Each structure stands twice: as structure tokens, then as C-alpha cells.
């Protein structure tokens, strides 16, 4: 780790002791421990290089999938081209469940379910971003949008027969066989991932105007029905 960062950790620790406890900006020291799960693929700090995943220096404010010299999945390129930038809120959504935000990402990581773990690891990542400056007012410490779905929505049991009918609108573009020729596969997803992704489109947290439009007019029962149907299709 670069010397500068040790300094800044100390500094932020001071800040944390005084103010951050109330504002929930995360604990970078605790975040460094969480980051152990990430570092086998993602290098961070001085001299970091792309490995299995891209290095994560300077990630804040950067467009997703924008490093020259790293081969991203088509899925991540697509969300990047759709306008996704990495900030505290988008990182929080992504880290909770990468596939829900960018289906088909090669980041084979199940996600950090614990909100505090995400908060802490984001605080840790922030120390390796010079732009914007690591000051409390700057991005990413602006309050994150809460993407957590109402547990009642996640608990809905979908009607697969209704889902089968509704699915015919999806299969105009998404192949029922699970093929991916420029539009990702949506079959055999865990129902929860499907519901989270569709609500992310519905709430316009996830880019792509076609999907925002299609999801936008589906209600929670209809999304649950689709999730129930697609979860059982044979690939």
C-alpha cells in the first residue's frame, strides 16, 4: 500500500471518530478486510495492473467498462455505454449483486449481502481515488440512493402461467433458449436476481431505455410472475 494512503486512512480514522459515525460513510479499515475477497482478481494501489479483473484505482466517477486494455464482458460494456458511472450508490448496487446490475458480467462474485460490508469496502476503495478528492463533501460521500427493495416485493410469489404469457413480450428480443447474440440471456436466473434487476430498470437505476420502458409498466406481481416463469425454463 502506498504511503499516502496510510496517511489518509489515519486521517479518515480521525474523521470517523468524530463525525462519520452519524453519517455512515463507512470504515475504510474494516473495508480493507472485506476487500480480501476482491483482491485475488482486482489489484489496488501503487503499480496496480489489470489481472483477472481491472485494477480499481481511481474508480470513482469513471464510466463502467472504460479502461483501455481490459477486455470486459459484453454485459458490462453495454451498461457502460448506457451511461453507468461508478459512484457510491452504483457501486453499492453492483456489489450487492453484480449479475442483477450487469447480467452476464464475468465478475463471478455472488455479492456482498451485508450493507455495512459494502459501505466499508466502498470507503476503502475511495482512498485510491484522487478525483474527486477524498474529502467528506465530495463524491462518493454524497448520500447513496437506497436501492434496497421492499422485502414484501421480494417475497411475492409469482404466477408462472401469467409469467408465461407476459414472457412473450420478452422473447421478441431475449431468446427463450437462453442464447445471447447481443441481447443477454434471461433464462434460469434466480428469481430474486430477476426481480431486483427488473425493479432497477423500473426505477431507472439501471440504464437502457428499452428495458426501462418495458419494466416501467410492469407491476410488482407481474415482475414476480416473469421471474417465476423464467426461473424454470430449460436452457
Amino acid at each position, binding site marked *: 500500500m502506498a504511503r499516502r494512503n496510510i496517511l489518509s486512512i489515519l486521517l479518515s480514522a480521525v474523521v470517523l471518530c468524530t463525525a462519520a459515525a452519524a453519517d455512515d460513510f463507512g470504515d475504510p479499515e474494516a473495508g480493507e478486510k472485506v476487500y480480501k475477497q476482491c483482491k485475488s482478481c482486482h489489484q489496488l494501489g501503487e503499480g496496480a495492473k489489470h489481472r483477472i479483473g481491472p485494477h480499481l484505482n481511481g474508480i470513482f466517477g469513471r464510466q463502467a467498462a472504460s479502461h483501455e486494455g481490459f477486455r470486459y464482458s459484453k454485459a458490462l460494456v453495454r451498461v457502460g455505454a448506457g451511461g453507468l458511472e461508478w459512484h457510491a450508490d452504483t457501486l453499492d448496487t453492483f456489489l450487492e449483486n453484480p449479475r442483477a446490475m450487469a447480467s452476464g458480467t464475468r465478475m463471478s462474485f455472488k455479492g456482498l449481502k451485508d450493507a455495512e460490508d459494502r459501505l466499508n469496502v466502498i470507503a476503502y476503495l475511495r482512498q485510491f481515488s484522487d478525483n474527486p478528492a477524498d474529502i467528506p463533501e465530495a463524491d462518493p460521500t454524497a448520500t447513496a440512493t437506497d436501492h434496497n427493495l421492499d422485502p414484501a416485493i421480494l417475497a411475492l410469489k409469482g404466477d408462472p*402461467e401469467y409469467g408465461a404469457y407476459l414472457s412473450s413480450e420478452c422473447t421478441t428480443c431475449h431468446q427463450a433458449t437462453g442464447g445471447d447474440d447481443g441481447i443477454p440471456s434471461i433464462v434460469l436466473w434466480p428469481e430474486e436476481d430477476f426481480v431486483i434487476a427488473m425493479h432497477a430498470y423500473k426505477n431507472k437505476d439501471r440504464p437502457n*431505455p428499452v428495458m426501462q420502458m418495458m419494466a416501467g409498466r410492469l407491476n410488482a406481481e407481474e415482475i414476480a410472475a416473469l421471474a417465476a416463469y423464467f426461473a424454470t425454463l430449460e436452457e
Partner: protein
Amino acid sequence: MTLNRRKFIGSTAAVAAVLSAPMVKAGGHGKPRVVVVGGGAGGATAARYIAKDSKGEIDVTLIEPTRMYYTCFFSNLYLGGFKEISDIGHTYGGLAAGGVNVVHDWAVGVDRDAKTVALAGGGSVPYDKLILSPGIDFVDGAVEGWDLSAQNAMPHAYKAGSQSELLKAQLKAMPQGGTFAMVAPPNPYRCPPGPYERVSMVAHFLKQNNPTAKIIVADPKEKFSKMALFQEGWNNHYAGMVDWVGSDFGGGEVSVDPGAMTLTIDGEVTNVDVCNVIPAMKAGRIAELAGVTDGNWAPVNAADMSTKADADIYVLGDASQQGDMPKSGFSANSQAKVCANAVRGALTGSKVFPAKFSNTCWSLIAPNDGVKVGATYEATQEKIAKVDGFISATGETSDVRKATYEESEGWYTGITTDMMG
């Protein structure tokens, strides 16, 4: 012909049974019968979905004269050199394997009292429910000097296949610095952005092979689909090549002479090397023969695509007059699913869900420069009404445009699989 004799014998009894009890399976003489005329985005989808979802409870016959279906969508990409003609050709084997009785013949008449469809090859096919998805035909005399006998000298290429290949051959044979002309159609017509995507693809081809050539477009309209996006793209990629003459400048005052290869716009005669005439359109002829048209199109009920004229005849896609949806393959595919659900419900008592429609049209302007427009729709008492929509913005980054193009390729595979199995 592959129709079996049993169906003819069974028809009278079955029809009587259906008339008296429409929600019940047709008598003891076999299954209820659905006949679909036209194997494009509407008809193929409807046939496939009814056969698939009824799990053998409904007899589905598709009447389609051609053995190979060439999609109109992406046929412009063939003109531009982005696709081979074989890439946009699809056979009906998948539908046959999915339980659809595919009959390669022309439907030449509908007897609504006897509930039969007459075939050019002789004989007729009985139906309980008839779905017409015949696409478009051209309005006689729409462009002065042009009729179907001139379609070799001046191709329309608005039904894909041999016409597309002809137009491509003429484009390749153009002399250096020559003139490509298009006569664009008045509203409403198949694929609103289609003529302008075609201009883009022709311009792309000419820029590679014939950079001093010119394109002139005579248009009876003042504005057109995705106009700002196309004009931006033409300026960016093909500066000085495209001369679009709208109705304000006489673009609607047009005649052609296929013998002399001239185009006259508002009295001014131009010699042209290729002339792509896209005349005004109307519903495919079988809709008119069935007596379900009013003017050029067939008015339908938004909830299930049944015609206003006959509750047992449905019209899908370009031929229908339904309200706000554009005439597109995506729309036809969307309407077909609503119709299939309603027809299956009427014949077998399966659950009928409320109609939802959607459409998205992608267009390619230049390599990796794709744009899109789309909307969702619902059924109201009067029509299919728009709910929500979006359109690509001018000035988008090249990354966004490339992603849009790649999305269109994914859609093409998706919809053709959805139609043909």
C-alpha cells in the same frame, strides 16, 4: 398439397358446433381449427404460439406461398453490405416441427359463411378462427408512370427477397458519379424509418464503392421517422451526398419513366441510374378479398385484433388499422401474441390475459452507428393507444451508438427465433 381429407369432411359438423357453443371444443369431430394466412412476423408468430401453447388441442394451418421467408427488417443492412441475403432468409421447418401444418400455396378467397379459405392450387381449408397477416400491397397508380410491370426497371424492394437482390445488383452496377433516386411513400406505410435507413445504407455502399455518386429522395412528406437522427447521420457520414426533397419543395409532385430512366420532381426532369420506387401501400389483397377492409386497411378491435367486420377473422401487422402502433415486424409479432392468447382462450377456454403491446425499431445509419425508437401500448375501446416511449438522442457518443447496433443484432436473432422456432 398436405391438407388431409378428414378435415374437409369434418368441417360442416365442426362449424355448427362452434357456432352454437363457441367456448367449447368443436364437436366430436376433432379439434378446433385455426387458419393463418401469411407467414411473416405476425402470421408465423401467431401460428407458432397457438400450436405451442395449446399443446395439440388446436389444429393450426399456416398458408404461405413462399418456402423461404426473407425478413424486410435487416434487408437494408443487406443493401449496405452488412448482411448476406442468406442471413435474412428463414425456412418454415421450425414451425412444421412445432406442430403447425404448413401449406405452401396462395390464399385466393375467403368464404365467411362457409368459413373456408380457397387456395390457388385448388380446394379450400375450413377454419373456426381465421388470422390474416398478409402484409402490404401497393396502391395502383400511386406513382405516375409506375406499376408492378415496372418493378424490374425500378424496384420497390419493399418486400424482401428477389427485389432486394435486384436493387443491390443495380446499385453495384451504377456508373461512377451516377444518381440513385428514391421515391418515398406517403403515410401510413410499412416500417416508418425503413426508407431512410435504406438511404443511409445505400450511401454507405456508395461511399465505399462510388464516392462521387449522388442520392436524391423525393418525399411526399414534410417530416419522417427519426428525421433529426438520420439528417445528423447523413451530415456526419455522407456529407453532400444525400439530397432529400420534402413536400415543401415538390417532393410529392413526382412521376417516373421506367423506359427512359427519368424521375420528374415538380416538373424538373432528372436522369437517374437506379430508381427505387416505394409506392403508397394498402393491406395485402386477401384482407380485401375477405371483405374486412375499410379503405386501404382492415380496422380491428384493440383487445384481440379481431376485425370490426367479422368476429372470427383477425388481422395482424401491417394490414391492420389498429391505432397508434407503427407498421413494423416488432409490432406484428407483439400483436400476434395478444391475438394468439385470445384465440386460444375462445377455442379452448384457456385463460385470457389483458393485452399488452410494444414496439422498438432499430435503424443503422453507418457502421456501429445505430439508433432506436420504441413505445409501449395498451388496448382501449377505440384503438391501440400509446402509453410510453423513447427515442435515441442526437449527439450520442459512439459507444452508445455501437451498443444500440449490437442490441439490434441481438433483437434480430431473438425475433426470428420467436417467429420461426
